[in-house]
C-alpha cells in the first residue's frame, strides 16, 4: 500500500522540489537575517558592555556629552567606589578609509573600573601623554601598524600625529579600538568640558538598581544612568524596525512557500485521487489518509527547512564576509565572524518551515480524507473535491479583519497589526481567488474561435485547479508589486527631498560621524571671507537626549532665516512662528510621532545653559536620520551650548563662480583640507545618497527577486502539471479533428486568461498592500511619510515578462503533452 503511495508521490517529484525550494528560501532568509542581526546586535551591545568594563552602572550623556563637572560629583558619592570618566567618539586616520572608534580614558580611574582597556605601555607615563595612542591587537593587524609606529588622526581640519605606545592587551579578539588619554581626547574632539559617560563601580553592599533610581532623579536632563547592558540594548533598538522588516520579508517568503506547498499538495491530491480512493477502498482509514497527506507536506517542509538552515547560514556567512552585519543598513556595522547558530533558533526556523508546509497541505489533506472513495474512483469526480474551497465566508472574514487591523496603532513601536493586515489581505484574497476567477470567467463573452471557446468552457467548468495554481503567484506578485511601489515611492520622495535640502552650490562636510572633524570659528570666518563666496551657512550636528526612555536624537544647529523656513526645510506642516520670547524649533516627523509633539508644543532642551523656551514651529520630513532630528538656529545653539564649531558648511558662489572654482578656493583657504574631508557638490551628494539608498534596498530587491522566481517556478510547475494531466483530453480532441495548433491555442488562451487574471489580481492586491506599506508600515516603523509613486512602466514590463513566461511554459508543456504518444492515451485508463 505504501509502495503505491510512494510511486504516486514520485511522479510529482519535480513540483515537490519546487515546494522544497520555496520553503528553503523562506527559512534561509529568515534564518540568515536572524543570524546576521544576532551578530550585529551582539557586537553593538558587546561593544558597549566592553567599553564600560566591569562597571556596575554607567552614567551616559547625549552625543554632545555630559558636563564633566558631573564626574567629580559622582566620584564623591559615598555609594561610588570608583568612577571612570570616558570620552568616546570616532576618528578618521590618514591613509585608512572609514571611521575608527576612539576612547579617551583616565588611566588612573579606568584601572579600577575598566582595567582591560588600559594600555600596556613600555613607559608608564605614556598613559598620560597627549601624543600617545594605544590600539587593540585587532586594530593593529587591520592597520598593519606595529607598536612603534605613528598614526595621524584628524583633528579639526588638520591631522595630529600620535605615537602608538602599546597594545591594549586585554581587548577582546576582533575588537577595534584606539585609546588615548582623556584630556587628549577632549582636545582631539574639541569637546572641552564634556564626557560621554562615567562608568561607576559601586561600594560593597550598594544595590545598583536602587542606587540608579535615586541617582537618576538627581541627574540633569539628558543624562541617564543604567546598567551597561541597557545602554547596549538602547543602541540596538535603533535598528529594530529595520530588523523586523527584514524578518517580515522572510516570513513572507515562508508564506509564499506555504502557498506553494498548498498548490502542489492540492494538485497532487487531485491527480492521485483515484489512487487515494483505492487506498481507502483497500482499507486505509480516513484519519490515516489525513495524516499521510499532512506528513507528506510536513516532510517537504522538513527537507526544505533543513536545506534552508544550511543555506541561511551560508548566506549570512557570505554577506557578513562581504558587507558586514549591517546588511546594507549603515547604522549597523560589525566585522565579527559568524558564530555557530544557537540550536533553539535553528529549531524555531525548522518548525516554522515545517509548519508552513504542513499548513499548506492541511486543506488538501482534509479533502482527501473527506472524499467518498466509491465515487472518487470514477473519473470526472475532481470538481466535487474542490467545491468546499469555494465557500466565500472565510475569505470575506479575513478581508474584514484586515481592514479592522489597519485602524490599530503600532504595537511596541512596530507595525505588527499592519503586517497582520497584509497577511490577512493576501490570505483572504487567495481563499476567494477560485470564486473570483469563476465569477470573472462567467462574465467573459464566449466569442472567438473553437479553441478559445473550448478553453473558456473548460475554465468555467473547472476553475479550481487553475485557481489553486495561482495562489503562490498572486501572493508573490502582490508582494513584489507592493515592494516595488513602496521602494519607488520612497526613492522618488527621497530624490525630491534631496532637492530641497541641498540648495547650495557646494558642501563642506566634516563631522559625518567622526568627532575629531569640525570647523572652528577661525576656519568659519576664513571661509565666509573667500572672494568667490556669495553666502555661506554653517551647520553643527550633535546629539541630544530628549527624555530617558528614547535614544538620543540628532540636533542640527543651522544658520537659516527663521522667518521663512519653508524655503530651507522640507516642512510637512505649516510654519507657525513662535511667540515673542520663544525660540523656534523644527522637529522631524520621527520626533513628532515618537515624542508625541505637535506644532505649538513647548519643548525643553537639555542644553548646558538655560535660555528662552523652545516652541515647535514646524514638522519636517527627514530621511537622513532614523533616530529623529531637531533643527534650531545656530546662533541660539551657540549661545546655549557654548559651542561655535561647525561640522558642515554650505557655500553659495558669486555669479560666474563655478562650483569647481569655489571648491578650489575652499581648498586653498583651508590649506590643510584633509583628503577625507568631503567637499562635494549637491549633484554628487544626491547621487551618493541615492546610491546608498539603492545599496540599502539591494538586499530587499534580491530577496524579492528570489521570491518571485520561486512563485513563477511554482506557477510554471503547476501549469505544466495541469497540462500534462489533460493529455487524454487533448488526445480525444485530436481524434475529433482538432489540429495540434488549435489545441495549443486552446491551452495558451486558457493560460493567458488564468495567468492574466492572477497577475491583475496580484497587481491590484500589490497596490493595496503598497498603500499599507507606505502609509502605515513605514510611518509606524520609521516615522517618515512619503508620496505614493507607482512605477507603471516597470510594473507593466514585469507583468508582461511574467505572463510571457507563463505562456511559454504552457506552450512547452502543451507540446510535451501532444507528443506522438498522446494518441495512445485515449486507450489508457
Amino acid at each position, binding site marked *: 500500500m505504501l509502495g503505491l503511495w510512494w510511486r504516486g508521490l514520485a511522479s510529482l517529484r519535480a513540483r515537490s522540489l519546487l515546494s522544497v525550494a520555496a520553503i528553503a528560501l523562506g527559512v534561509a532568509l529568515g534564518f540568515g537575517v536572524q543570524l546576521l542581526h544576532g551578530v550585529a546586535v551582539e557586537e553593538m551591545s558587546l561593544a558597549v558592555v566592553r567599553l564600560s568594563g566591569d562597571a556596575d552602572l554607567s552614567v551616559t550623556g547625549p552625543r554632545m556629552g555630559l558636563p*564633566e563637572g558631573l*564626574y*567629580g560629583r559622582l566620584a564623591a558619592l559615598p555609594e561610588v567606589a570608583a568612577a571612570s570618566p570616558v570620552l568616546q567618539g570616532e576618528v578618521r586616520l590618514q591613509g585608512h578609509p572609514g571611521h575608527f572608534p576612539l576612547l579617551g580614558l583616565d588611566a*588612573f580611574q579606568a584601572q579600577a573600573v575598566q582595567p582591560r582597556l588600559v594600555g600596556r605601555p613600555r613607559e608608564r*607615563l605614556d598613559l598620560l601623554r597627549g601624543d600617545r595612542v594605544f590600539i587593540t591587537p585587532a586594530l593593529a593587524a587591520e592597520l598593519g601598524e606595529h607598536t612603534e609606529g605613528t598614526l595621524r588622526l584628524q583633528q579639526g581640519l588638520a591631522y595630529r600625529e600620535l605615537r602608538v605606545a602599546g597594545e591594549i592587551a586585554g581587548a577582546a579578539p576582533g575588537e577595534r579600538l584606539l585609546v588615548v588619554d582623556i584630556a*587628549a581626547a577632549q582636545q582631539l574632539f574639541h569637546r*572641552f568640558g564634556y564626557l560621554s559617560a562615567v562608568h561607576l563601580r559601586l561600594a560593597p553592599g550598594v544595590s545598583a538598581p536602587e542606587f540608579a533610581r535615586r541617582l537618576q532623579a538627581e541627574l540633569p536632563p539628558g543624562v541617564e544612568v543604567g546598567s551597561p547592558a541597557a545602554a547596549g540594548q538602547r543602541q540596538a533598538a535603533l535598528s529594530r524596525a529595520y530588523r523586523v522588516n527584514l524578518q517580515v520579508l522572510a516570513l513572507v517568503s515562508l508564506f509564499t512557500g506555504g502557498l506553494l506547498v498548498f498548490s502542489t499538495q492540492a494538485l497532487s491530491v487531485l491527480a492521485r485521487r483515484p489512487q487515494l480512493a483505492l487506498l481507502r477502498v483497500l482499507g486505509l482509514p480516513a484519519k490515516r489518509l489525513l495524516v499521510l497527506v499532512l506528513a507528506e507536506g510536513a516532510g517537504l517542509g522538513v527537507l526544505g527547512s533543513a536545506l534552508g538552515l544550511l543555506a541561511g547560514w551560508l548566506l549570512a556567512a557570505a554577506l557578513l564576509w562581504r558587507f558586514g552585519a549591517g546588511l546594507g543598513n549603515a547604522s549597523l556595522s560589525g566585522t565579527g565572524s559568524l558564530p555557530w547558530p544557537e540550536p533553539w533558533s535553528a529549531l524555531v526556523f525548522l518548525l516554522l518551515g515545517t509548519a508552513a508546509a504542513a499548513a499548506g497541505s492541511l486543506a488538501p489533506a482534509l479533502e482527501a480524507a473527506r472524499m467518498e472513495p466509491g465515487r472518487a474512483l470514477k473519473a470526472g469526480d475532481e470538481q466535487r473535491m474542490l467545491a468546499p474551497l469555494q465557500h466565500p465566508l472565510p475569505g470575506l472574514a479575513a478581508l474584514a479583519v484586515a481592514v479592522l487591523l489597519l485602524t490599530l496603532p503600532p504595537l511596541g513601536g512596530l507595525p505588527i497589526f499592519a503586517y497582520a493586515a497584509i497577511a490577512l489581505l493576501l490570505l483572504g484574497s487567495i481563499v476567494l481567488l477560485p470564486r473570483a476567477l469563476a465569477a470573472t470567467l462567467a462574465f467573459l463573452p464566449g466569442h472567438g474561435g473553437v479553441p478559445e471557446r473550448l478553453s473558456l468552457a473548460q475554465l468555467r467548468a473547472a476553475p479550481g485547479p487553475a485557481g489553486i495554481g495561482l495562489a503562490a503567484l498572486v501572493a508573490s506578485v502582490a508582494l513584489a508589486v507592493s515592494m516595488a511601489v513602496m521602494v519607488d515611492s520612497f526613492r522618488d520622495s527621497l530624490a525630491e527631498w534631496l532637492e530641497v535640502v541641498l540648495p547650495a552650490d557646494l558642501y563642506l562636510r566634516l563631522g559625518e560621524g567622526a568627532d575629531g572633524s569640525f570647523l572652528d570659528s577661525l576656519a568659519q570666518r576664513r571661509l565666509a571671507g573667500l572672494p568667490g563666496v556669495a553666502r555661506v551657512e554653517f551647520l553643527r550636528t550633535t546629539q541630544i537626549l530628549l527624555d530617558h526612555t528614547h535614544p538620543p536624537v540628532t540636533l542640527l544647529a543651522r544658520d537659516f532665516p527663521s522667518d521663512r523656513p519653508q524655503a530651507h526645510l522640507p516642512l510637512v506642516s505649516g510654519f507657525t512662528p513662535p511667540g515673542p520670547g520663544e525660540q523656534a524649533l523644527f522637529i522631524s516627523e520621527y520626533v513628532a510621532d515618537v515624542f508625541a509633539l505637535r506644532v505649538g508644543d513647548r519643548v525643553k532642551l537639555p542644553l548646558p545653559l538655560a535660555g528662552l523656551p523652545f516652541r515647535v514651529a514646524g514638522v519636517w520630513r527627514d530621511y537622513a536620520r532614523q533616530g529623529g532630528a531637531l533643527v534650531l538656529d545656530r546662533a541660539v545653539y551657540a549661545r546655549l551650548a557654548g559651542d561655535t564649531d561647525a561640522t558642515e558648511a554650505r557655500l553659495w558662489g558669486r555669479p560666474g563662480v563655478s562650483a569647481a572654482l569655489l571648491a578650489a578656493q575652499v581648498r586653498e583657504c583651508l590649506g590643510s583640507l584633509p583628503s577625507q574631508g568631503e567637499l562635494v557638490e549637491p549633484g554628487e551628494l544626491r547621487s551618493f545618497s541615492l546610491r546608498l539608498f539603492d545599496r540599502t534596498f539591494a538586499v530587499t530587491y534580491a530577496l524579492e527577486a528570489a521570491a518571485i522566481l520561486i512563485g513563477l517556478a511554482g506557477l510554471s510547475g503547476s501549469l505544466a502539471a495541469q497540462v500534462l494531466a489533460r493529455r487524454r483530453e487533448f488526445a480525444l480532441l485530436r481524434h475529433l479533428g482538432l489540429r495540434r495548433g488549435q489545441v495549443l491555442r486552446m491551452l495558451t488562451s486558457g493560460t493567458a486568461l488564468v495567468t492574466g487574471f492572477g497577475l491583475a489580481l496580484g497587481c491590484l492586491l500589490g497596490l493595496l498592500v503598497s498603500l499599507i506599506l507606505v502609509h502605515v508600515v513605514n510611518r509606524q516603523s520609521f516615522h517618515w511619510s512619503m508620496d505614493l509613486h507607482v512605477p507603471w512602466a516597470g510594473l507593466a514590463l514585469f507583468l508582461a515578462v511574467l505572463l510571457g513566461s507563463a505562456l511559454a511554459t504552457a506552450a512547452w508543456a502543451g507540446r510535451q503533452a501532444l507528443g506522438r504518444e498522446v494518441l495512445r492515451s485515449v486507450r489508457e485508463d
Partner: protein
Amino acid sequence: MLLMILVLLLARPALAVDFPPVRPGAALTFPRDHGAHPAYRTEWWYLTGMVEGPDGRTLGVQLTFFRSRTGLQEDNPSAFAPAQLLFAHAAIADAATGRLLAEQRSARAGVGLAQVSQADLDVTLGGWFLRRSGQVLLARAQAQAFSLDLQLVPAAPLLAQGRAGFSRKGPVLTQASWYYSWPQLTVRGTLQRAGRSVAVEGRAWLDHEWSSALLDPRAVGWDWLGVNLVDGGALMLFQIRSGDGSRLWAGGAWRDAGGSTRVFQPGEVEFTVRRRWRSPRTRLEYPVALRVRVPGLVLELQPLMDDQELDARASTGTIYWEGLVRALRQGQAGGWGYLELTGYGGRLNL
C-alpha cells in the same frame, strides 16, 4: 617616605618644562606655603603618628599626599590635562595584625575628585583629604580595609628645616627642597577596621616638602626619621645612601624641650644598625633597629613590629619599609617616631 616620588623622578625622561629651582634666601610665608606649589616638580604632605585606643594598644597611622608636576599636556586646555598628579597613601600599623594595612589612591588633579589648594593646606583625593580648618588640621581617608578620621591640634610651633626651610639634599647646591615640619600635633579621632570603629588619641608629625631637583644621581635610597620626643622636643634626621652603601648626604634638626633648635651638618649625623630583619615575602633585609646619634642626643630605635614593609611593586613598582618606632633615650621611653628605609631592594629598575 619619599620613595614614590623618587620613582616618578627617576622614571621621567628629560622634559622640556622649566621647573623652578629651590634657592636659599626666600622666606616661607603662611598660610600660603601650607598650600601647593604647582610649579615645582614634586611636593608632599606627610602625616605620621602614634595613637592609642581605649584598650591602650599602640598603633601607627600614616596619611600622605603627593603632588607631581608631570610636564605633560600643559598646553591642553582640558581640565583633565594630566599636568599635575596627586597620589595618596594611607596605612595603619598594629602589632596585633603583625603587618601594615595600607592603601593608595592616585588621580590627575583638577577635575572633581582631586584638588589641591594653593592658598592653604587643603588637598583632596577621592574623598581622602588633609586640610587646615582654623587652628585644627583635619585628615580623613576611607580605604577598603580601614578608615581614619583625625583632628590634629598643634601643640608646638612649626619647625623650618635646613636654613629657614631651605633643606639641602645632596652635595650639589641645587639638590635641595623647601621643607618644614609640624611636630607634636595632638591627635584625636576614630579608626575603623573590619566595621569596628574606635576612638583614638596620640601624637602626630606633619612634613611638607617641595622641590624640583632633589636627589643625586648616585643615590639608591635613604633613611629618614621623625620623632616626637616625650619632653616636647622633636628630632628629624635623614641620610642619603649611594649604591656602594656609602653615605652621599645627611642632615637633620633637633628642637629641644626648651624650644631651641639645632640644625646638623652631614658629619654630625650617625646611623648605626643594631638589628636587621629579613622580610619573609620579599627576602629583603631592612635595618629595623637603629641607633642614631647627633651631638647631644642618642636614641635607640625599636620598631613597633618588624614587618612594616610596603610592597607596592604591583602598582608603583616600589618596595620599602616605613613604620612606627619606639625611641629609647638612655634606656627610658624617649618618644615615638616614624622611620623610613628605602632602596633596600637593590637599585630601582623601572
